[in-house]
C-alpha cells in the first residue's frame, strides 16, 4: 500500500474545498496514512462473488403526488443567510469582468 504524499493530501483538500494551513496538511498526511493502513486490511476479504449493499434494510420506493404543500416563507428561508439582498441571497461575483465575452 503506497502512502499518501503531501501533494496528494493538498489535492484532496482542494477537491473538498478545505483551506488548510501547512501544519494542518502535515498533520492530516500522518493521520490519513495511519487510517489507510486500516483500510488496506479489507483487501484480505474475498468479495469476488459478493454484491455491494448501499443499505441493508431495504425499503420499497416511496412515491407521492406532485402537489404543492405549505413550506417556509421567503423570510424564514432567508433568516440564516449571511448576506441578503431583498428576496435573494447575496453572493460574491462569480465571473470577473475580464472573463466576460
Amino acid at each position, binding site marked *: 500500500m503506497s502512502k499518501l504524499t503531501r501533494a496528494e493530501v493538498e489535492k484532496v483538500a482542494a477537491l473538498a474545498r478545505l483551506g488548510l494551513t501547512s501544519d494542518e496538511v502535515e498533520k492530516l498526511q500522518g*493521520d490519513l496514512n495511519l487510517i489507510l493502513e*486500516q483500510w488496506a486490511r479489507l483487501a484480505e476479504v474475498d468479495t469476488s462473488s*459478493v454484491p455491494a*449493499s448501499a443499505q*441493508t434494510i431495504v425499503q*420499497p420506493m416511496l412515491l407521492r403526488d406532485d402537489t404543492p404543500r405549505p413550506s417556509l416563507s421567503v423570510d424564514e428561508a432567508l433568516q440564516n*443567510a449571511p448576506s441578503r439582498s431583498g428576496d435573494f441571497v447575496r453572493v460574491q461575483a462569480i465571473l470577473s469582468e475580464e472573463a466576460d465575452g
Partner: protein
Amino acid sequence: MSADLRRATATQLRAGYRSGEFTSVEVVETLLAAIAREDAALGAWLHLRGDEVRREAAAADVTYAATRTAGAAALNALPPLLGVPVALKDLVNMIGTPTTAGSKILEGYISPYDATIAAKLKAAGALILGKTNMDEFAMGSSTEFSAYRRTVNPWDRERVPGGSSGGSASAVAALHAPLSIGSDTGGSIRQPASLTGITGMKPTYGRVSRYGIVAFASSLDQIGPFARSAQDAALLLHTIAGSDPRDATSSATPVDAALLKLPQGDQAASALKGKRFALPKEYFVAGMEPGVEAAVRAAVAALQSAGAVIDEVSLPTTEHALATYYIVAPAEASANLARYDGIRYGASKHGGGDLLDGYLATRGRGFGPEVRRRIMLGTYALSAGFYDAYYLKAQKVRTLIARDFDRIWAAGYDAIVAPASPSVAWKFGAKMSDPVAMYLADACTIPTNMAGLPGLSTPCGLSEGLPVGLQLIGAPWSEAGLLSIAAGYEALSANAPWRDQDPTDLAALGGAA
C-alpha cells in the same frame, strides 16, 4: 421531595401528574435548579429553554387539573408525555432554537422549522428542556470534538461521557432530565449510554424519521432514546417512531404497540425463560478491559440462570466492520457536509476574494479537526481511481457483515448479547492524539449500524467504579423484544448494589462535597 422528582422516571412523572401528587412546574423547577447549580461543571447543555419550559409546564398543569375532575378515561386520553421534560441532541431542528451540531460552522443558526421528531414530541406534550452537547457533526466517541464545551461524565469528572451523544447521555445520567434524544451512526447512543450507566437504544434503520436532523452518514444515521429504564426508553421510542412522508428512508412498518406494554418486574424476568441468546466470541476483542468482560459475562450468566439459553457463536466479519465503517461513513459525510459553503446559512468567511477563496476559508476555519479528517478521508475514498478499491469494496464487505447477522436470526436466536464498549469511560485526552485508538472505541457497536439492526445498551454493573453496558442486538423491527429483555435483566439485577447508586461525582458537580 425534590430529590425524588430528580430521580423520577418519565413513567413515574406521568403517574404523579395524573394523580396530582406533584406538578410539572415543580419538576421543571427542580431540574432547572439542578442544571443551574451543576452544569458549569457537567457541561451537558448548549441551550436551555428555561422560561419557555416554565410556561409550558404551567399550561400542562392546568390541563391535568382540569382533566382530573373529568375522570380516568379523560386522563388516559391526554398526550402521553404531557409535562415530561426531554432533552434534544443539538442536531435536532426545533423552531426558534439554535442548532449547531456542535460545530462553529453553524454558530448562530436558528432553526426555521421543526424536525419531524420535534413536532411529534411537542404533539405528545413533551417539554423540550433544551439542546445538548455533542461531538461536532456527531463525529467522535467522547464529545471532546465539540467546538463549544467539554462534557464530563457524572461518574468521574476527569473522564469522558462517551460520544457522540455525550451531552444527552450525561444529562440523563446526572438527573438533569428523565429522557433525551440522541443519534447513533456507529454507536453514538449505545456507547455513551454504556459509559454513563443509562439505557440507550439505536432503533432499526428507518424506524425514526430523520427529517430535520443534521445529516452525518445517511445510510447509517438513526435517531433514538436515552432513559433511565427500558420502559421509559420504549415510551420515548414509541413517541418518535413511525413513517414520515418527508423522509423517504423512514419505514411503513407499523410502530409496535408492545412498546407501551413492556413486561415489568417478575413478569419481565420470567419471560426470559426459554429465550435464546447468541454470544459472539469476536466481541470479546483483544484489548477489552478485564473488568468490562467480567461484568458482561456475569450479566450473561444471570440471564442463563433465569432460564435463557446461551450459545457461543461466530460473526467472522466483525474484525472488518471498523475499516468498512471508516470508509462508508466518511464518504457519505463528505457528500453531506458539502452543503456548508457559507452562502445560504451558517458561518461565512466570504470576503474580499473570489468565490473559491470564500469556500476554502469558510470550510477550512469552520470545521474542526475531526470533521476535516473525515471529509478528507471520504473525499479521497470517492475520488477518481480509488472508488472501486475503497468505497465499492466496503459496500461488498457490508453485505458480508449483514449476512453474518442474518445467519443468527435464521438460526432462531432472540438476540445477540455482547459488550457495548470494550472499556469504561476513559480520561480526557487519552485518545485525542490517535484517531485509530478513538475509532476502536466503537468496535462493539459499529457492525450493528453497518447491518441497519436495532441495538441497545443497558447498565450491567461497575468496573473500577465506572459503569459497564450490556449490549443487546436484534433482528430488524425487534425493538420491543430487545427492550423487554432489558426490562427482564433490570428485574433480575434489581437488588444489585450498583443498581440504585447515584453517579459518584454527582454531588461534587454542584460544589457540595
